[in-house]
């Protein structure tokens, strides 16, 4: 089996790795690149724990081949922090107790960021439908939704001229 050489941008950094043609992006992120923040809950796109941004749109990294990442931009949960500053979503998740075991949390946070990138003022229903691809078995989603809506308000506040 031939190995493919892939050059891609992950969280702003140029990264290279070798992979098999059928290696998934999730496997490469977790294995070759050591970025284990993206989780595998199902390997079939049904749980969203592996959600990352690919060229600015959220995808399940278990449903992307690593080879497809060539020349593209990837953002993972590890890229959500800017220096020491937690993203408002991360802050609100902590404040609201929006995580219990925390295993789905990276995928939920990336998906929630994608939501707020697209829609700065989502309704509760919009947030629920947007996040329907992210299974959480611990929380019943209540505090997740509250945290996302609170973070949306924080971001609007940040953006609005003082």
């Amino acid at each position, binding site marked *: *089996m031939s190995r493919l050489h892939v050059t891609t941008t992950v969280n702003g950094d140029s990264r290279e790795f070798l992979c098999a043609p*059928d290696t998934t992006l999730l496997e490469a992120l977790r294995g070759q690149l050591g970025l284990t923040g993206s989780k595998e809950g199902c390997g079939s*796109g049904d749980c*969203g724990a592996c959600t990352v941004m690919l060229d600015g749109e959220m995808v*399940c990294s278990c449903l992307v081949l690593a080879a497809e990442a060539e020349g593209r931009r990837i953002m993972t949960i590890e890229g959500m922090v800017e220096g020491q500053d937690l993203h408002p979503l991360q802050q609100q998740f902590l404040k609201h107790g929006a995580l219990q075991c925390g295993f789905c949390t990276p995928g939920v946070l990336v998906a929630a960021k994608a939501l707020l990138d697209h829609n700065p003022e989502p309704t509760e229903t919009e947030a629920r439908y947007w996040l329907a691809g992210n299974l959480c078995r611990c929380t019943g989603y209540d505090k997740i939704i509250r945290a996302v809506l609170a973070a949306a308000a924080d971001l609007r506040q940040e953006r609005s001229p003082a």
Partner: protein
Amino acid sequence: MTTATFHSPASLADAVKLLAAAGARPLGGGTDLIVQMGSGRALPDSIVDLKRIPELTGIRRTADGGFAIGAATPCTALKAHTELAAAWPGLVEGANLIGSVQVRNRATLAGNLCNASPAADSVPALIAAGARCRVVGPAGEREVAASEVPIAPGRTSLAPGEVVAEFLLPPQTRAGADAYLRLTPRTEMDIAVVGAGVWLELAVDGTCAAARVALGAVAPTAVLVEAAGAALVGTKLDDTALAALSAACRAAARPIDDKRGTAAYRIAMAGVLARRAALKAAERAAVRKEA
């Protein structure tokens, strides 16, 4: 686990050459293929990524006022295209019920059609819309109705090496509209127990001038139910007409019992969903007519 090569050609011509090799599989969104590779159900020798081929990506207006949708265009791009979403809201809704947002950022109409699942959410809407596919292969190019691509669960009428390059949608008529509804136990992340796509057109006086009704998940492939469309034509979608539509849909349904639903339930729901979709399409058509 034996996939030997991965290609990402920049032109359709190159893709066709690569796909001519035995064991080659086109990769659109990958939301079916990569899952099948993971479970061992698909073991392609080579993978040909279609997403870097400019002519297969994106949505454009055709000369007749219709739309051409590139085979590698993700479902969410359909929703973002204002004109397409205004003209064919039912198709756009069907495509945007597949999986989750994550999945729809990758999944394509072509993949949904060529995976040939009887329950594919975009297919009844494609059939009801009268969509056609431009198919390209080693022997050249041909056009075929979308309804003729899937022939059995997991099987298509495409010849070896052929690939759907784009979908061609007719222009929406002035008082025409479509709708797609599906029934699932969950609100999202689910596979249709039954799906119903309806296109219809209203005459000036509000009677139905033409209609097409297609059902998903009630037969080995999505089916066009001509009798159901005929039941609407010439009516104002009164209770009698809708009852005839439902009866025609129930009669056309030949489902199986499986983990997602019983045959009896699917038959009953085919009638209910088709009626609701027809009413939704008619409501939209009425708005267009008045606009």
